[in-house]
């Protein structure tokens, strides 16, 4: 294979992986802080895609800007969902029973969102026609799709902002403290419940923004989440459960593996490559790429 083709595969993989990475950060944040596996994450992404679509079609808002505009309303939506539903299945109590309740709740939420959207907006696929979805930046023989390039850059910026927020601000530090040691954080005067709400709000806002970026080149339909939710979970586990940089790297790795798999395997086995890589990582490094090994005492 010519070197140019190989570079093209790598570039394509990274660009695809950029949006996977942003999607996965939200999920990792929610799991990292609340220990909640949110099956409805993909559905909030789908809603983010629809909001971006309606902003673009109804008000002529460029979807790249629309993706950013989804952040405030989805942050509020996340807070509300936490306050009304998730707060009942998090916090104290039997951890096993809580986990069961969380799984049922988020799975139920996912089914309700998907089906309500199908009923209200019909299953008809919609798409935002943007010039950059069908144009590419040419770097020598390498073509970089413009929509994916913009989406990648914005994903990078948003992920960077989340990282700065978590490591450089007091609220971010409180959030991490609530994640690492909720009891001790409580003793320090940190409102753990509020931190959970914050994590859920930010997590939902991020995945909605990722949906907005995805909508610049991907059609929107009520069931679009199923194409991505498994990849999000793989990215989060691959990166080390709950690790934000890990989830970002996990998303990029999935994009790369999907693309590079095609060098050795037929198209039908594209996602098989992802899962083989996933199993290999779990076998060789069970704590994930960025996770910390737990020591038994």
């Amino acid at each position, binding site marked *: 294979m010519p070197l140019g*083709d190989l570079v*093209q*595969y790598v570039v*394509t993989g990274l660009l*695809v992986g950029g949006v996977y990475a942003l999607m996965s950060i939200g999920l990792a944040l929610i799991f990292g802080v609340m220990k909640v596996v949110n099956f409805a994450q993909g559905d909030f992404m789908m809603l983010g895609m629809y909001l971006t679509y309606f902003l673009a079609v109804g008000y002529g808002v460029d979807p790249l800007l629309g993706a950013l505009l989804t952040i405030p309303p989805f942050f509020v939506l996340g807070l509300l969902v936490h306050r009304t539903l998730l707060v009942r299945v998090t916090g104290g109590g039997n951890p096993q029973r809580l986990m069961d309740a969380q799984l049922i709740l988020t799975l139920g939420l996912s089914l309700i969102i*998907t*089906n309500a959207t*199908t009923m209200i907006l*019909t*299953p*008809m*696929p*919609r*798409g935002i*026609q943007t010039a950059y*979805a*069908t*144009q*590419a930046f040419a770097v020598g023989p390498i*073509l970089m*799709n413009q929509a994916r390039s913009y989406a990648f850059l914005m994903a990078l910026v948003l992920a960077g902002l989340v990282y700065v927020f978590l490591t450089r601000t007091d609220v971010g530090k409180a959030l991490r403290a609530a994640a690492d040691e909720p009891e001790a954080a409580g003793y320090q005067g940190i409102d753990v419940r509020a931190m959970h709400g914050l994590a859920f709000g930010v997590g939902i806002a991020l995945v909605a923004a990722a949906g907005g970026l995805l909508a610049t*080149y*991907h*059609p929107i*339909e*009520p*069931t*679009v989440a*199923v*194409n991505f939710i498994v990849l999000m979970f793989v990215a989060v586990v691959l990166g080390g459960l709950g690790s934000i940089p890990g989830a970002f790297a996990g998303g990029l790795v999935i994009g790369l593996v*999907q*693309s590079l798999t*095609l060098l050795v395997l*037929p*198209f*039908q086995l*594209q*996602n098989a490559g992802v899962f083989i890589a996933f199993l290999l990582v779990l076998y060789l490094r069970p704590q994930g790429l960025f996770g910390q090994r737990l020591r038994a005492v």
Partner: protein
Amino acid sequence: MNAAGTDRGRGVRALAIALAVLLAAPTLLAPALAHAEDLKITLVAPLSGRWARQGQLKKMGAEMAIAEVEAQGGIKALGGGKIVLREADAGDSVEKAVSAAQRALSREKISAGIGSWLSSFTLGVTEVAERLQVPWFTLSYADSITERGFKYTFQSSPVSSLQADQALDLILDLAKRNNQQLKKAALVGDNTAAIVFFFKPLREKLLKAKGIDIVVDEVWTPPLADATAIVQKLRSSQPDIVFYGATNFPDSVQVLQKVKEFGLKTPFMGVGAWLVTPEYVKTVGKELLDNVMSVTAAHPLKGQEDLVKRFTQRTGEPFMTQDPLMSYAHVWIIKEAAELAKSTDPKAIRDAVARLDLRSGPAASTLIPGYIKYDDRGRRVGATPIIVQWQGGEPFTVVPAELATRKPVWHGGK
């Protein structure tokens, strides 16, 4: 016997007759006063999941036919009975489709079924219908649907292998008329049953017989993560024609967007009505679509303008395609079969369909060749593929020429 006794006797007789008439009246008047018997049919189609749009379109066609049957006085042989539609969601997997059919057919008496769009679903659903002995009508293309010796399956579309054969002849003829010679072909599509059966004869014999090399042969399992690698292969191998089968809308949009991005000018010949739905125009734009043709089992023909107008006015859809057309025809076929069978019994309707030879009426006039008859395998006699081409943001029938609404245009050339 005195006069008074005679009078009393007459009175008693009159009373007895009146009583007898009153008692007999319900029986005598029964046929006239009885409620007409409704005919329940089911539509098992994807109403959720990635193929939900196709199910929605099928439903629109079926509902329109049901309304028209009712407006014409219902099924006369059943005393003006109406057709009642029970829809069931086939979802996005064979398992869900089979279970939906199972539920729909076992919950109440269903006289006939329609579905389930995707050949893979239909293969599963028709097994249920066969077991429960309910006649089943499908527009699915896969050859294997009617290769299993089933008695209750009626396939109204030309099968995939036939479509491949005829599509190739057409495209060769079209290229020749445009002074193009086809030497290299690409097969690009997913691994759903109809596409597999369309590609198989092309791959194994048809293209070779015409001296055409296959330069790209890429098949994927939906959904497609990214189309770059596929279109990159097309760009580097420069085929003269791409046979295209991406039944999942997002996959297809990704491929078409990439084709534009990479500046590929190769003509695309799709297989199936998924490629001619209105949402394509909104998502990828009409300019890009003008490069695209598709082989389908049905599409509005010359002379069907009134039918299309009724459909667009009723539904708000910009145009009519195979999916509503076929379910429209299927409802009318079931109606005619019920007239012939004079019964709602599914077995009687199945037997009526087997001997049906409709030469006129809405069912016959909707589908080429203008009559409805099924052979012993359940395949519609004379079913012929139609070639549809996007022109100016709308798909038009371009082949067969005598029923075409536009002339085909060759967009190829390098």
